[in-house]
């Protein structure tokens, strides 16, 4: 099977600091891929580099064999990389349904003229987007909040809004940056169910950063461990669980004396 997303020898410097070194990644279609590592290892930086927030100093990023390195973030997103953020990046003055609607931006082609004069093309496309938004909101169990401001929602629901919004961009790979951070056990169970369902329904590959080991081990097919910007281990969950290097990075070296 060919790779959906392929990152080759990506290195990035912030000034003199080498944040990511010689990073390689291959995500196959429909794969759930986990990225773990201690705080400050550069996990979110990897996300930002692939999704175009920063342009990597060196290396190559291919999505379906097309180079996406150096494109603008919105273009990369439109090509099929949807993402969520570690510290929720919702639009605080907007309601939930508008969040989901907005994420269809790249799928519209009625142009400014259509928007100004409310042409038929504009109305048709907007109606379609509205329908699609309601379908997504149902799936993510946020339909009851449709007209509420996002800031008035409980935390778990806000996370789900973010995910629904990312899915509305119609991504090929969904990047989830700590999807369960700060969630209650109940919400956590709901989240696992939703991620499973998204994976099933949308034919999408998922790349996620997570700290809860149970969650990662349960969901992911492949896991990568990042320490100080370098991958120290990669493999299926059982292998990672027992990898001495990973244990060392997380728990520290056992004193042998």
């Amino acid at each position, binding site marked *: 099977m060919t790779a959906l997303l392929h990152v080759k020898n990506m290195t990035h410097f912030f000034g003199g600091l080498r944040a990511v070194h010689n990073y390689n990644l291959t995500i196959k279609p429909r794969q759930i891929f986990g990225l773990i590592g201690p705080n400050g290892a550069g996990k979110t930086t990897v996300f930002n580099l692939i*999704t175009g927030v920063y342009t990597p100093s060196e290396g190559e990023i291919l999505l379906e064999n097309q180079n996406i390195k150096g494109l603008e973030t919105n273009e990369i997103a*439109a090509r099929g990389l949807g993402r969520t953020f570690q510290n929720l*990046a919702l639009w605080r003055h*907007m309601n939930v349904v508008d969040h989901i609607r*907005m994420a269809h931006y790249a799928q519209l082609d009625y142009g400014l003229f259509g928007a100004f004069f409310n042409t038929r093309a504009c109305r048709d496309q907007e109606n379609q987007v509205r329908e699609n938004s309601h379908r997504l909101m149902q799936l993510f169990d946020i339909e009851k909040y449709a007209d509420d401001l996002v800031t008035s929602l409980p935390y778990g629901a806000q996370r789900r809004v973010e995910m629904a919004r990312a899915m509305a961009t119609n991504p090929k790979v969904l990047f989830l940056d700590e999807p369960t951070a700060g969630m209650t056990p109940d919400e956590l169970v709901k989240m696992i169910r939703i991620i499973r369902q998204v994976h099933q329904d949308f034919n999408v590959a998922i790349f996620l950063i997570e700290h809860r080991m149970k969650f990662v081990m349960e969901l992911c097919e492949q896991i990568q461990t990042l320490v100080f910007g370098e991958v120290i281990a990669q493999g299926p969950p059982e292998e990672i669980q027992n990898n001495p290097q990973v244990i060392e990075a997380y728990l520290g070296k056992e004193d042998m004396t």
Partner: protein
Amino acid sequence: MGILQKFKQMFSTVPMLGWFLGIFTAVLIEYFWGYDYISYYLGLPKIPVLFGALIMLKEPVMIPGALAYDLVVYVIPVLAVAKLSCFITNPGAALLEKLPLWLSAVIHLVCFYGILHLWAGINDYRVLVVKLTLVSIILTVSINVINGYQGEFSCSHPGFMALGAYVSSILTLILFTNDKIFGTALLPPALGPYLFPLVLVAGGAAAAIGSLAVAIPSFRTRGDYLAIISLAFMFIVKSAVENLNFIGGARGMGGQPDLAPLPVIFIWTLLCIWVIHNFVTSILGKALNTVRDDEAAAESMTVKTRKTKMTAFMFGAFWAGIAGGLFAHVLTYINPGMFSINRLAEILAMVYFGGLNSIVGSIVGAVSINVLGEALRPLELFKWIIIPLILIFVMIFRPYGLISFTEINTKKLLQAKHKRQQGVSP
């Protein structure tokens, strides 16, 4: 509180059409008997222009008379007719509801314009106030696109307005008038009213191109820094015009043909509100909000933020240019001093008073600040104490303005109001 609530409930069954009928009656009363009978018997020298505010402030002796006039001519007829005509206006509104929404809206607007025209026509001063208020509505709604929806603090609106005013004035002077500076008219002046929309659009386009000078820096900076850049833009435009002698320099430029009667301005205002409403409720327009609230998230959700910012500035500036063109042809004289810091203060006061991110708010803000400004004119200096005080109170109690973050719901506004509905909804 109790009385107010009772009052509200009593009139909750009146549809928009009923209010129109009530106001229409009041205007008719004023039109036919206002001068000959009512103001004569109340001892007023003439018809009070703005509900007696000017007379009351100039000569306090007249206060009872002016208040009585308001009561007799406006308050009692409007309330009585609106309430008593419910039995006929409600079925009427229900009938209109069956029509397509746009048709019903157009019918309402025609009625509204008729009343406005009649009311304003009673006095020349009123016509001017109404015209300037309509121009202010265009200005406020358009600056709301930049300062409200897009969330920048742009201070360059008077500059855009000046560009529009000067470009359209130069065009009309060249094309339709025999002028000292530009020579004889190129086209027969009779064509003026027909080509005026094109002239205005040219003015708007000039403003839109000018706005790039602010839009492009906005890619890299926002907040205070952009405010300073935009302020600089406004002063650059003003000084440039002051130093261009062929368009009059600081002395200004007069003699524009009077191409902007009330109906023309009314139609442009409606067009402006309609187009901006369409834009800001569409996804392309909502993109402005996403850029305001979180630019990084917007980028990641496929929004083209640069294009969005440029659109916001050029679109807002375009309408400011149109407003400037209309303004120039209402006053038939402009000078650079009109488009300076005072105008900026006025525009910002209107938009922040009325409410950010809301077209209704902008309309309310523009109308109230304008009418207040005219009504308090006799107070002279104290006017500039009272209006800022009101602004400060609004900012304390409603930081985003009176009516913020709301869109027009035409259907709800125009629908018939039956008693039965009242019982169901709390």
